[in-house]
């Protein structure tokens, strides 16, 4: 079981991630970490993939982490977590250690792309951990290169805007669908603008005996080209325009946790970001239309999935890899 969070006063006062780290002002990733770890028990162990978050919070001899924390490489955070889980299990049997909740943080590059195999393997093996993908939609740490998580149309340093083509041509990978295909007991999207929703999802995920997954939008002021004071606003607009719907998949059952019956125009979200500015030129209007249709269709798909799975799946009907 897990406890739902109702108000700010319920949050612990200890800081899992100390101030003084080197993340950019207005960085979404640090907010993701704080919200996740404030919702998680204090004895949580953290594994971190290489990326902005890792390089900016653990510059030897300093560390911002008030939790046991390990970084090994870019593509292996989920594999490292499966080792931690197995090590603690074996040691617990000997009475030499106890098991603890394990939270993994990986960026979109470390999750959608290079770390995907390790994540898939660890989920299939059923290790108990919560994997949090903080998605800033490009390789921000190396200088804003496109990833499998970069949305269609976005400018990056490897999807440049020129006379021959403009921004990323391909669609963003549907990460949650791939995760759900592993039949994990819990997967959800979350946004730092909807912190109660996010924290409840963290607690729900950690209550499951098996691999769980949280896909959190982490706006990047440098890569998306927006005012660093507007990070939370960007995250909120992504939800309110249906660009990034908030939903969960629990034992196969889809549910929109923050339905958006009357969405704001997608342009409101896109226009605030320099990476999309070319979409508003007259010659790119059809591309803008494609993006908007994609947003509408995705939301409809989720509504349908919620209806279908509610009708056809009792919670216990869907086998999961929980052990």
């Amino acid at each position, binding site marked *: 079981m897990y406890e739902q969070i109702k108000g700010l006063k319920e949050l612990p006062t200890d800081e899992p991630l100390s101030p003084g780290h080197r993340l950019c002002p207005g960085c979404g990733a640090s907010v993701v970490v704080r919200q996740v770890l404030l919702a998680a028990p*204090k*004895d*949580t*162990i953290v*594994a*971190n993939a290489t990326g902005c978050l*890792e*390089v900016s919070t*653990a*510059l*030897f*001899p300093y*560390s911002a*982490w*008030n*939790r*046991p*924390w*390990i*970084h*090994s*490489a870019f*593509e*292996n955070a989920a*594999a*490292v*977590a*499966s*080792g*931690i*889980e*197995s*090590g*603690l*299990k*074996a*040691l617990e*049997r*000997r009475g*030499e*250690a106890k098991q*603890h909740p394990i939270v993994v943080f990986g960026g979109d590059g470390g999750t959608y792309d290079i770390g995907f*195999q*390790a994540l*898939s*393997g*660890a989920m*299939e*093996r059923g290790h108990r951990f919560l994997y949090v993908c903080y998605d800033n939609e490009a390789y921000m740490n190396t200088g804003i290169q496109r990833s499998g998580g970069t949305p269609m149309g976005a400018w990056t340093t490897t999807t440049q805007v020129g006379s021959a083509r403009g921004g990323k041509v391909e669609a963003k990978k549907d990460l949650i669908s791939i995760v759900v295909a592993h039949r994990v007991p819990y997967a959800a999207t979350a946004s730092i603008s909807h912190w109660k929703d996010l924290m409840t999802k963290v607690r729900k995920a950690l209550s499951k005996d098996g691999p769980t997954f949280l896909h959190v939008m982490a706006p990047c002021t440098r890569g998306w080209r927006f005012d660093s004071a507007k990070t939370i606003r960007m995250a909120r607009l992504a939800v309110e325009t249906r660009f990034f719907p908030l939903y969960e998949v629990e034992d196969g059952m889809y549910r929109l946790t923050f339905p958006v019956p009357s969405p704001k125009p997608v342009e409101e979200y896109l226009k605030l970001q320099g990476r999309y500015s070319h979409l508003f030129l007259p010659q790119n209007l059809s591309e803008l239309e494609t993006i908007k249709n994609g947003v509408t269709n995705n939301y409809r798909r989720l509504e349908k999935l919620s209806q279908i799975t509610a009708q056809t799946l009792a919670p216990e009907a869907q086998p999961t890899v929980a052990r």
Partner: protein
Amino acid sequence: MTLAQTVRIAALQGDEAVAEAVRQCDVDVVAAYPITPQTIIVEKLAEFVADGRFGGEFVPVESEHSALSACVGASATGARVFTATSSQGLAYMHEMLYNASGMRFPIVMAVANRALSAPLVLNADHSDMMGSRDCGWIQVYAENVEEIYDRTIQLFKLSEDPRVMLPSALNFEGFILSHDKERVRLLDEAPIRSFLGRPRPKYRLDPDAPLTFGAIATPDTYYEFRAQQSEAMRTALDVFEEVERDFERLSGRRYGAVDAYNTDKADRIMVINGSAGGTMRAAARALNAAGENVGVLAIKLYRPFPVDKILSHLSDCKTVITMDRSISLGAQSGPISEDIKSALLGAGMNKRVMSVIYGIGGRDMLIDDGKKIFGMAKEGLQFGQGSIMYGVKG
């Protein structure tokens, strides 16, 4: 000598001997991915798991990269950790080899040596481990199945020593040793476990005392991390001797960092590692019985390199024959030859050195081959004159 225990005789393949030792060593986590010719190790361990004879966690990962990554995570909890691989698998782990040693995790790995693709081949040479030679792992080459068994036990002790805290790779040639069934004198479990004790790492992932593992360094700090590893490697040379001494009390068996045959009198000494060491000793014995005077120096501990021990055996001979079961393409000779030449030069010993490459991709190396090579060394190449590719066709 009165031994601490009785022994049990068994006929085991090299891979089986590793698995048996791992079971007896009370390992907490095994994370491994199957690759020929290492597979018997993981199959045997899975059998132990199924029979309830292995008390640890067996993590059947989806790749070698994840195998070593899971070992890193498990080792960070303070657990005793083991993995095994070969060839392409070791190459796939390459990044993580440096990571594991840089984070000072005392992981033990069995490497059933196999040549690298392309072209793909399943048989033995040392180019897999030699390609990862500088990765900061202790590297031992075994010569027979009983040594494989003994070294597996020894390496947990050596790696986990607080003065060392470096991972170890136990090398033995694929098929030649991994699948070869030999007589092994198995030791009892209890004395092995008291010989090893439990791992007691100073640092571990512990919520009561949160620590940061795997921080990022700068040019101001990185060098010192590497210097500390280098120091630990030097210390490992001494600790290796202690471990061997203590293991001898347990088993009555001692191998040394090098194994010397007739090196004090020989005019030609062959320096070699791996399974062919025994074959070459047989060749040398046959030649000496016919009135020649040759010796064999088998390198057992390759990293850290026991340079003083090696030089002490080479001081009196005229010719050194270096034997490499791997090719450093574009170099003058193989890695062992380069090591030996640099050791000789550093000590001011001007010897005739004949560098030989042999057994690549599993090409056989028999007693007659050894005799031929000793014969060729009567003439021999000089320092820096390249290598003989022994046994290559055409």
